[in-house]
């Protein structure tokens, strides 16, 4: 069959063996690639419920999307798939009851995996010493990585190139944070792009796998070359010279949303207690563009280039590998009341060097700041750090503590839920997480009907990318499986349909219903895996804060979310999903219809 390599690479770090496994046409047809195919494989590996996410039995997968490697604009994303080391069921039946985890990154690693001849890399087992996986087409080696231990992301990115002796290799790796066991460690590539959410880097660290390094020379084929070219032409037109994507979104990237979100009162501010940030103009895209950013950077064949690099000035001056984005700018900026643009870039730089998820990090710092402000904890608890709102220096000290897992850092490295458990004193009310996974930078008040659904029903714990309704959720699942970037794909022309792309590449001629059902299937499979571990509707709960604390400013000032109203929205959701209204578990008929069981 055309359009796929038809096989995945499996590396067993315990026995130090590698082998390939062929996949059937049916598996591609039902699960496409990326997140979907990863979940299908995960469901086969997790035969035992309650598998320890940090144990050898948990597989860690690098799954390039179906479109990875094709020069289709903005479709080069790789999905990390594994079992989450972060989430926990409220009524666990087994010790290690956790959700599935998936996390998405751009860059160049996905296409290179496809070029090397694989549709995914599955790492199982656990090594006793640090290793990295070397892949050059059929040549696969598990090599010693002792000398790279503790190396920061930016340093490693160059060091691995020297090690393999050729700049054409692409790599994905973890930083020292994930190596030491920070639960929200991320998998990085190119020093700045990361699969941040869901703790996939932590799983990689537990396996003592420092990196994978890949290079491939295979050619990509399409089932219908003429259709493919037609679609490619349409896609490129979406990013023409006068398109909004080019004139507006290349200018500021996702950071354009910083101002927009604050204005409409949907930003995470002061540990999610406010939706509008008064200092936003100092850290928005215009400020960053004029003060820090120098370059635009694109992922593989992307025509938008949302990523920025530059140089910060002043006390926090230095090279900026990763300019602020909406999420990083909000979580380490607005959420902590920090409006020092240079300091903010410094914090992002340090966090990325440790390789830890900045969304969770911003939550952890915000939560601790609120506890400190409310005098629930003192400086002794914080190892002497005076963690006051709006100050960069104590935050930097805290990030170092977390990255090194020292003192309070070892506790903070376990996330907000763990901190609220040890701090107590009703701090649970403002511990911003769902299932133990912290919320992202979009605040809930006033947007609960969509965002609330996204956060509560997301299968990796709170997630802003999941989608606020059933159709949107199925579609975002499909995007992750195809490797399409959610941000850039927003500007695809309306006459461009993903299922036509699937047809051009693989020859699968899916109807609109079959196409959407594929997304539904993947989403339900994830849900089913979670429910098997003991998760149910009680776990789909928003933090108490949103039902109690009203904003004091902005368009949604004074509003609090009504619990009865939100429950009825949720009722509607479960009913339409074909899940049990009381338990939230997918009904037998639903799973049967989707060919999951």
């Amino acid at each position: 069959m055309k359009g796929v390599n038809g096989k995945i690479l499996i590396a067993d770090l315990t026995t130090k063996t590698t082998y390939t496994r062929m996949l059937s046409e049916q598996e591609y047809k039902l699960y496409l690639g990326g997140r979907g195919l990863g979940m299908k494989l995960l469901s086969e590996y997790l035969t035992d419920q309650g598998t320890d996410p940090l144990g050898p039995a948990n597989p860690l997968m690098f799954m390039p999307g179906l479109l990875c490697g094709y020069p289709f604009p903005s479709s080069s994303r790789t999905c990390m798939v594994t079992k989450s080391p972060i989430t926990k069921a409220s009524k666990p039946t087994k010790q290690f009851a956790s959700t599935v985890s998936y996390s998405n990154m751009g860059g160049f690693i996905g296409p290179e995996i496809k070029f090397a001849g694989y549709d995914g890399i599955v790492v199982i087992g656990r090594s006793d010493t640090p290793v990295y996986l070397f892949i050059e087409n059929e040549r696969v080696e598990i090599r010693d990585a002792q000398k790279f231990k503790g190396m920061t992301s930016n340093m490693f990115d160059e060091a691995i190139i020297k090690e393999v002796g050729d700049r054409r290799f692409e790599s994905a790796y973890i930083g020292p944070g994930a190596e030491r066991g920070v639960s929200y460690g991320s998998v990085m590539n190119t020093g700045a792009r990361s699969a941040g959410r869901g703790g996939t880097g932590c799983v990689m660290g537990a396996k003592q796998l420092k990196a994978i390094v890949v290079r491939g020379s295979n050619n990509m084929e399409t089932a219908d070359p003429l259709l493919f070219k037609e679609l490619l032409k349409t896609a490129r037109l979406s990013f023409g010279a006068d398109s909004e994507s080019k004139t507006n979104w290349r200018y500021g990237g996702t950071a354009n949303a910083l101002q927009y979100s604050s204005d409409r009162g949907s930003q995470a501010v002061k540990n999610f207690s406010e939706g509008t940030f008064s200092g936003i103009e100092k850290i928005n895209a215009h400020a960053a563009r004029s003060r820090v950013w120098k370059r635009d950077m694109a992922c593989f064949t992307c025509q938008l280039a949302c990523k920025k690099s530059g140089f910060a000035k002043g006390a926090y001056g230095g090279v900026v590998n990763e300019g602020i984005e909406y999420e990083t700018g909000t979580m380490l900026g607005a959420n902590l009341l920090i409006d020092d643009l240079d300091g903010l870039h410094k914090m992002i730089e340090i966090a990325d060097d440790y390789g830890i998820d900045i969304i969770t990090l911003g939550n952890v710092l915000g939560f601790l700041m609120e506890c400190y402000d409310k005098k629930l904890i003192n400086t002794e608890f914080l190892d002497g750090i005076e963690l006051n709102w709006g100050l960069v220096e104590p935050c930097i000290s805290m990030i170092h503590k977390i990255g090194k897992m020292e003192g309070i850092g070892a506790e903070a490295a376990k996330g907000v839920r763990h901190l609220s458990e040890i701090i107590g004193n009703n701090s649970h009310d403002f511990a911003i997480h769902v299932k133990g996974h912290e919320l992202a930078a979009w605040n809930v008040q006033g947007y609960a009907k969509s965002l609330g659904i996204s956060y509560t029903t997301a299968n990796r714990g709170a997630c802003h990318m999941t989608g606020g309704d059933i159709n949107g959720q199925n579609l975002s699942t499909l995007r992750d499986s195809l490797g399409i970037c959610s941000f850039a794909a927003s500007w695809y022309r309306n006459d461009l349909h993903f299922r036509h792309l699937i047809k051009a590449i693989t020859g699968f001629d899916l109807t609109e219903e079959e196409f959407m059902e594929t997304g539904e299937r993947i989403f339900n499979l994830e849900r089913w895996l979670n429910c098997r571990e003991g998760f149910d509707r009680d776990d789909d709960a928003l933090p108490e804060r949103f039902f109690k604390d009203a904003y004091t400013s902005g368009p949604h000032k004074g509003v609090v979310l009504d619990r009865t109203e939100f429950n009825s929205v949720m009722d509607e959701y479960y009913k339409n999903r074909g899940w049990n209204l009381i338990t939230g578990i997918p009904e037998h008929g639903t799973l049967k219809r989707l060919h999951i069981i």
Partner: protein
Amino acid sequence: MPLSRKDFIINSFWASSGFIILNRTETVAGTLTGNGPIKVIVADYDRCTGCRTCETICSAFKTDTSGDKSPHGPGNCEQSNIRVWRFMPPVDIPVTCYLCHDTPCVASCPVSVSAETGRKALYRDESKGTIVCDLNRCIGCQSCAETCKTERSGVIYPDPEGSPTGMCNLCDGQPQCVAWCPYEALSFVEIWPEQTKYSTPQIIFEQLKHKLYTIQSH
């Protein structure tokens, strides 16, 4: 029309762009001796985002046998004649064959000059200006690739038989990488070859790093 001296300095001097680095002190047109201007592909590093669309376009164009080449199908970047080198801190350097006027690659070719054609195994096709390998005479010693790598753009690499490939053929006068670059970072312009100063990607990176990421530059 040849690019004006001023325009070219603005566009292509290392401070803003150009894989070919001009020597500022020299004067131009009219006073020049030797051959006239040639057209080459010039990169603007301020515009390049490192997306590697050029690589996929080039390899697709080379390997596409369908006859319908526009737009291009998929292609593996490995087979491209243009290379985007990514460095840390983030700088992306696209390079293709510089079409150097002094052709050190040809100079390093150990194969004797043929009495019949007056050419070595590697030679410049005078009608197009491009560097070509005579596959019948090449001994696969990699001298040209080695020389190009240490002194120039380093685009020459061995094909499966060990003969040099990767030299730009300018797509018969319509370079596809230039036509399809989403960021207008590549242009096909006339330059005066004797005035150019050639650098390796590593050296260009060092200069750009200094420009973008040091305190002195602010």
